[in-house]
């Protein structure tokens, strides 16, 4: 009996050691580690093997749109500019923007060898229009009168009304886009495209599905042998260097950190600065956008800050009230409380201070905002802009650099911490200060502040920091958290007072798609769901500009001028107090792979979860 037990134990040990040695060279899915780039997925799936993006439930962030999808227009995130992917260039539109000719790039082939041409493009848009079960169908019918292939490489889009932003709406501007071109020779043979799982997809991107977990925990992609015929191959001429890319779910934060430290993963989506510190101190191959402070990139296009439910009425509908809140906040302290001072100040409402936007909008508006004055209601005024923020933060954190470098790191400035002015503005907005606190309409005034418990740390920490500041200032505040599912409803119906959120985002010069939801004509009463922004900012001048912008081409210089005017109105009316641009700590591990995009090599942003990742794969190279 004992002999048998010993034998079993010995076999078990050998198996364990053998599998450990095997694991050192191979991944858990049986591919050579040195040929496999392992990436954390942003979105797990409950429908494994479902790759048809026009079927409900397909999780595109699981490598599907990053590696396989064909977009009409893609995004150069470093420059903040679109470029043609399937399209050869930008649409040539008629004068009233109702007819658009789009040339299709030649040379792209589907992974089964068929040519991708104008017929695939026209088929895709008509398929969307003809199938009410596709999410985008109703909208596509509202926009397009017809889409037809004029010849093999030309598509004519006819819109029901003036539509100057075809590439902006039907191409990628930030994360991705829902309009992906499908192979006509496959999809045209289907009885119902909305129930076709497409488990062995024929794609135009550089990777195809090699295998996947039937439980939805991982998908293994393999580089196409004819990668040069893929979208990326034709656009760049460069080969994606990893033969395999494994997208996998990693679970909770602790496991993510342990996997990264053990070199079991090469790229994580996003972590907190505390988690990054743990990982970098345990493994010197782990890095972030910067090798030193601020570590994170500040170029994520969604600035986090305080959103007001303006539709609730007084005092939230008063610009004086919202400005009072802004001036009651000590922004330096808020910055320290969020990510220890890391992050570029992005205090203008609505527009995020990414590097590109800082150059395009923030710096050109600086002179105007420095001269901007607020009437405090007692005959005095204040200039609320504080351009000393970058220098103060640098001094506090021991950062050295030129003024330009510091402004790039910390932004052009923030709103002043001016409690006395804030008090005057609150009084101007109708509040009354008594010995036991602030009153409104004769009753004690309390602000209910909401943050999202299960989503980005930056937004939640910002709201909590603001709560501390406002409480210190003397306002009575309640703090509560909501799951993002609850917030999605309350945010849309306006059932909140002040929330830590990011109402919009974008990185292109043309800001129409970021601001069109602020059209006051779209506002519905509190409690109802409308199609405009949930804050219900009602500004006639801003609405007029939005409606005028809708008729102009994004390339038209007047669009830019109107956008600048819009920003001045927004700053004066302060519908949203921005804190920082999206500050992302996205770690990489250079044990097996290197040349990830970084501050010193910013060929792209660190957006592994965006569709532009396929272009990053041509640069990430194996460690020799």
């Amino acid at each position, binding site marked *: 009996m004992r002999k048998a037990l010993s034998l079993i134990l010995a076999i078990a040990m050998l198996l*364990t050691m053998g599998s*450990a040695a095997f*694991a050192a060279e191979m991944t*858990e*899915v*049986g591919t050579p580690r040195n040929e496999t780039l392992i990436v954390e997925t942003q979105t797990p*799936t*409950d*429908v494994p093997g479902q790759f048809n993006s026009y*079927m*409900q*439930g397909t999780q595109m962030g699981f490598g599907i749109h990053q590696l396989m999808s064909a977009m009409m227009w893609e995004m150069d995130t470093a420059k903040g500019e679109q470029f043609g992917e399937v399209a050869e260039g930008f649409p040539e539109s008629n004068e009233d923007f109702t007819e658009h000719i789009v040339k299709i790039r030649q040379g792209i082939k589907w992974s089964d060898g068929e040519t991708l041409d104008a017929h695939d493009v026209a088929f895709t848009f008509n398929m969307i229009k003809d199938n009410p079960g596709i*999410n*985008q*169908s*109703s*909208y596509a019918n*509202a*926009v397009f009168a017809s889409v037809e292939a004029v010849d093999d490489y030309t598509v004519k889009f006819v819109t029901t009304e003036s539509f100057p932003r075809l590439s902006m709406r039907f191409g990628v501007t*930030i*994360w*991705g886009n*829902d309009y992906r071109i499908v192979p006509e020779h496959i999809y045209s043979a289907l009885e119902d495209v909305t*129930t076709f799982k497409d488990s062995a997809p024929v794609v135009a991107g550089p990777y195809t599905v090699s295998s996947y*977990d*039937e*439980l939805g*925990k*991982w998908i293994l992609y393999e580089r196409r042998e004819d990668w040069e015929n893929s979208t990326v191959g034709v656009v760049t001429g460069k080969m994606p260097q990893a033969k395999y890319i494994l997208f*996998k779910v990693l*679970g909770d934060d*602790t*496991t993510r950190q*342990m996997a990264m430290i*053990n070199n079991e993963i090469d790229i994580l989506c996003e972590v907190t600065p505390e988690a990054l510190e743990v990982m970098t101190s345990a493994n010197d191959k782990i890095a972030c956008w910067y090798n030193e402070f601020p570590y994170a990139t500040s170029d994520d*296009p*969604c600035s986090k800050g305080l959103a007001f439910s303006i539709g609730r009425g007084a005092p939230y509908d008063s610009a004086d009230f919202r400005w009072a809140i802004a001036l009651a906040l000590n922004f330096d302290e808020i910055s320290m409380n969020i990510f220890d001072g890391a992050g570029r100040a992005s205090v203008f409402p609505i527009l995020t201070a990414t590097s590109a936007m800082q150059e395009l909008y923030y710096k050109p508006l600086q002179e105007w905002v420095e001269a901007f004055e607020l009437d405090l209601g007692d005959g005095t005024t204040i200039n609320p802009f504080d351009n000393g923020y970058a220098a103060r933060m640098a001094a506090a954190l021991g950062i050295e650099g030129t003024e330009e470098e510091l402004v790039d790191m910390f932004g052009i400035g923030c709103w002043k911490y001016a409690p006395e002015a804030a008090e005057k503005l609150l009084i101007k907005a109708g509040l009354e200060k008594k010995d036991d606190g602030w009153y409104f309409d004769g009753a004690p005034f309390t602000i209910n502040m909401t943050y999202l418990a299960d*989503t980005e740390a930056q937004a939640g920490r910002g709201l909590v920091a603001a709560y501390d500041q406002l409480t210190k200032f003397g306002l009575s505040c309640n703090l509560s958290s*909501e*799951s*993002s*599912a*609850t*917030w*999605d*409803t309350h945010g*849309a119906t306006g059932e909140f007072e002040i929330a830590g959120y990011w*109402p*919009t*985002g*974008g990185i292109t010069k043309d800001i129409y*798609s970021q*601001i*069109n*939801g602020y*059209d006051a004509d779209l506002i519905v009463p509190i409690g109802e*769901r*409308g*199609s*405009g922004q949930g804050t219900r900012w009602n500004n006639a001048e801003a609405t007029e500009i939005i409606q005028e912008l809708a008729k102009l081409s994004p390339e038209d210089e007047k669009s830019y001028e109107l956008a600048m005017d819009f920003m001045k109105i927004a700053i004066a009316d302060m519908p949203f107090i921005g804190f920082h641009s999206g500050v992302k700590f996205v770690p990489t591990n250079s044990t097996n792979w290197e040349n990830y995009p970084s501050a010193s090599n910013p060929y792209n942003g660190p957006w592994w979860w965006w569709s532009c990742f396929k272009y990053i794969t041509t640069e990430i190279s194996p460690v020799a």
Partner: protein
Amino acid sequence: MKFWKYFGLRVLTWALTILIGVTFIFFIPRMFPSDPVENMIGQMQSRSGQMDPLEMEHLRKSLRVQFGLDGSLVEQYTSFLWKGLLHFDFGPSLLSYPEPAGDIIMLYLPYTLGLSLTTTLLAWLIGNFIGLLAGFRKNKRSSKILEGIAICIYPIPYFIVALVLQIVFAFILKWLPLQSTIYANNGMWAYITSILKASVLPAVSLLLVNTGWWIISMKSLSSSTAEEDFVLYARYRGLSEGKIGKSYVFRNSILTQITALAMSLGGVFNGSIMTEIIFGYPGVGTLIQKAILQSDYNMILGCITISIVAIATATLIADLVYPLIDPRIRYS
């Protein structure tokens, strides 16, 4: 006749329990402040920025129709009773539409059952055996040591045990994977090996904690039974300690444990959320959690209905079997 009356009453109780349970679980998610359509639109916006207002309006209408959220509550409820409760057809998962919620549950259920059923039964067997020894022979050193170990492990939350096991065996020693990866594409052996590798740590963490509870409860039961008059009488009659332990103490103590086991077996359908999250083990627990967070009504209904039916049925079986085990109980 008495049996049939007893049986009829128990079945009626079983049916009523299920009906009340599923009625609650049908209406409660619909009182959530969240909404699956808004949730889906919110997710799209948080990923890719502000949605075109016209597109949002069209999308909202389209999703409401697709998800069947346009009908009245009464219509939805009667449809659920007929389809869901009687045919276990819970409709499509709202977030994975049109994939039936039942199909998704069935994908995960075997893993949940495999892990939870095995660990529940093993823990019950081991725990009761050790508990019996510890209670019946409470003055022996081995009994005290075993009981001491159980007392030490039991109060530790099982996710802490799971984390410790993960850190030691997966992170430091690297003997087992940090996260379960089940690989079905390379033959049966690779598939079985991957399942075993993925299950070891979750199973051990559940086993350790559950066993502790069974040890403590059985020890308490058996030590009080061991002091009953009929046990003393058996000793005075000169019966062996083995015979007393098996026939007098064990048989009388195990009755409560059988009822508790029945309840535990019903509960295995819920999965073990924390274990599943920590080890990335595929299971129904995380499915329920995700469904609740994202207001996937049909998925919530599917998972919880199965659980309610399982627990109620396990209790019914225990009620019916009990008189066979304990002759003192009759069908009355």
